[in-house]
């Protein structure tokens, strides 16, 4: 059983070149939006906009400029499945199509998936969507096929600045913590890791170095397991069910009484 593997993405050296996005599409032979002929989004340099069934990597662009341009930043981040240690998608998949691999990554078996889309609504990061070709849910496999062949994932291999680093979670964490320390020394106090510890979802096997609040990058502050609602929601419902049954029964009984009292109930129907 190999060690848990994953990604550490240092957004401070991401140049938004999208090589990762394209490398992923090439390796996984994913189609382009409308065959590539679609409209410019106007959302900075982002024209693919989100992760979905045909975009397993997506580079985000955040323009932060004051009116007077006194201070300005252009944040870039290559988004992907977080391969959560406790994965909501996996947890709720009713067909068992989503599995955890020997690399501690999360993979959807397309041949088992029946497209119920439970996982889509469960993923806290909006990673999954149906693939229009297979009509099944799809997402980053962390290049399970390449890993099994001892190769590095296509996206991290293509990354020219090593913004995406692939390796054992252990090594990646030490690397990431060192970088955060360096940034703090250089005065970038906002630098922080996202998903490196187990504060949520038991930790993310694809974690990030950010220099602003998670929301700024379109990431939830504290993603949760969907099943958190299971017990309370069920209890309320059960209670409701009991009440309904009683109400019905009581209603009938009461009616009997009334009728005894009044004799025949009025009959103008």
């Amino acid at each position: 059983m190999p060690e848990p593997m994953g990604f550490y993405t240092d957004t401070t050296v991401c140049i938004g070149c999208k090589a990762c996005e394209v490398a992923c599409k090439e390796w996984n032979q994913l189609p382009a939006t409308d065959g590539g002929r679609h409209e410019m989004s106007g959302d900075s340099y982002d024209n693919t906009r989100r992760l979905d069934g045909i975009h397993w990597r997506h580079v985000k662009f955040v323009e932060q400029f004051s009116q007077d341009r006194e201070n300005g930043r252009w944040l870039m981040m290559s988004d992907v499945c977080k391969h959560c240690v406790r994965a909501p998608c996996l947890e709720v998949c009713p067909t068992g199509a989503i599995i955890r691999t020997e690399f501690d990554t999360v993979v959807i078996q397309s041949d088992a998936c029946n497209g119920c889309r439970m996982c889509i609504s469960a993923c806290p990061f909006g990673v999954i969507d149906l693939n229009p070709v297979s009509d099944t849910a799809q997402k980053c496999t962390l290049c399970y096929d390449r890993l099994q062949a001892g190769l590095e994932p296509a996206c991290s291999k293509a990354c020219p600045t090593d913004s995406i680093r692939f390796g054992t979670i252990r090594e990646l964490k030490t690397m990431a913590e060192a970088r955060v320390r360096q940034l703090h020394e250089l005065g970038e106090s906002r630098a922080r890791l996202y998903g490196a510890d187990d504060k949520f979802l038991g930790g993310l096997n694809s974690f990030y170095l950010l220099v602003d609040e998670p929301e700024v990058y379109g990431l939830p502050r504290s993603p949760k397991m969907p099943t958190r609602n299971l017990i309370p929601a069920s209890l309320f419902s059960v209670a409701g069910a009991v009440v309904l049954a009683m109400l019905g029964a009581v209603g009938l009984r009461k009616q009997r009484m009334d009728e005894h009292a009044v004799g025949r109930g009025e009959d103008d129907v």
Partner: protein
Amino acid sequence: MSDTFFTASPHWGWWIVLYFFVGGIAGTAFLLASLLQLFGRPADRPLARMGHYTAFIGAAVSGLLLTVDLGRPLRFWHMMIESNTGRPMFKSWVPMSVGVWGLLLFALFAFLAALAALSEDRPDVRALQSGPVRALRRPGALAVIAVLGSIFGLFLAGYTGVLLAVTNRPVWADSTLLGLLFLLSSASTGAATLILLAVWRRAGHPSSMHWLGWFDRWVLVLELLVLIAFLVTLGSVARVFLSWWGVLLVLGVIGAGIVVPLLLERGGRLRSVQHLVRSASLVLLGGFLLRVVVLLSSEQIHVLGTGVTGP
């Protein structure tokens, strides 16, 4: 901003809205029918039978709706048998997994109940008078079917809301009351359906009709309270309803679907069949709209780029 805003929509559209609606009616119709069967008088039996027919048809339709909504409908069975191991597939903590089995079992009881009802209705059909079928009509058997069926019926009426709550989607996962809300609304729509059918088939004995009306009123009151509680528990997410969805919710669901019917039946004294029909139809409409609003308002919200778009 609620963490639920960063998720993607599963594109659960009209098929699912309909499924939630029909399933709810089927489930509660079975309950009401069974109550009449267990505690009612002989005069209530026609209505009870009609309820069981409704339940069975509803269950069947539900199964269909659920299947056609799948990306790969032919793989429906993957939810019951693990496709690559052949082992039975059941996750007690996943509403959809439990729901599929629940629906299946409910359909079974609904079928039995409907069969029993049918053999009572059609003495002329010999096949329906065969031994096994008649066995179903023994009071003991009927009781068992009624009780178990009602349990699964109530499950079917409520789990859909729990299913939505056990996601990370805006509105759905931001409150734990959705199951209860759907359950109550199922009950009111179930009762309303029976009322309409009864009027249509002239099957309802006045007293049973009266009971249905009475039941419906109480449920509507509860539903209204829970709906308000639901909106409160949504907290900041409720701003989603500062939109046309909100208008639909207030006018359609609360106004037309709850308040007006209550007013129409003010004082519980049904003035005329028309009233009865009118209010029942409104309740149905309201129940349907409730599902439309809850489902589609959330469906509209996606993460795009880094911002959040939608209502």
